[in-house]
């Protein structure tokens, strides 16, 4: 690994480096934006699931006394 690093050309971060860095940063920025959008979607799905779980629990709570009345 050290010999590989020693053999590598120095990165010329002058005028050209600015553009190369810009291109790679644009790519990474797009990836980050995409991941952020997907995270927001995931949060919405989680919120919907929580809401549905409480809805189902309320429904089960209401159904239980009704069943007791029928059996009595």
């Amino acid at each position, binding site marked *: 690994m050290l010999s*590989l*690093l020693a053999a*590598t*050309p120095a*990165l*010329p971060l002058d*005028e*050209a*480096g600015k*553009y*190369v860095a*810009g*291109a*790679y940063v*644009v*790519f990474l920025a*797009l990836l980050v934006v*995409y991941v952020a959008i*997907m995270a927001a*979607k*995931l949060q919405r*799905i989680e919120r*919907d*699931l929580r*809401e*549905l779980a409480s*809805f*189902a629990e309320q*429904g089960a709570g209401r159904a239980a006394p009704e069943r007791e009345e029928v059996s009595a």
Partner: protein
Amino acid sequence: MYGKGLKPLSIASTAAIVAAFSLVFFYAPLDADQGFIQKIFYLHVPLSITALIGFVVGGVFAIAHLRSGDSKWDAYSYVSIHMSVIFGVAVLATGSIWAKASWGHWWVWDEPTLVSFLIVFLMYATYYPFRYAIEDRERQGRYASVFAIVAGAFVPLNFMAVRMAQSLVHPRVFATTNGGLPGSMMLTFLACLLAIGLLWVTLVKFELTAKSASGQVKRLRRALDAPLPGGRSRVAPEVS
């Protein structure tokens, strides 16, 4: 079930990207003509190849949808095109930066490669309004599939037309009479192509998994007869 294998795929694509970018900056030699600027090539070209193949793959899934009538293939086609459009944005952005650095202009209108990619990108940008203009889900999927097949067939035709056109400034790197890329550059390029391709597959799977989860929640809501929160409407194809 779409999430199966997503974790190892994500790890593999991250490792592949790190390895490929390491090769770009620490292994591939500097180009004799363009110097350090040429490093954009290893990002820009794999992105564009992946995006174009993704468009064609979207067309192939659309054929499967029309043949079988299974909405699963419509979702695959939609997600493939969606991801390729995102990759297309990256292609245009990195290409513009490379053009500015090499030619001194952000965009060159008399260059067939650039303009043809822009035409393909804009054509697929119309896929969304075209798709969502149709309310009936059955018709929406069918018409979108026809669009995806026709547009997918246009991509290789467009590519061949550009290859036949006489280019003024855009380099022809592969299959040239001069022998193309040297070995170390070709190896780096192939590693980048593999990494970007793997990233595309991972993101498609990620998107399908999210759509599937969203579809399952909607099915559950219907089964429980629960009201929709805020009258939210669905715009993307559902995966169950």
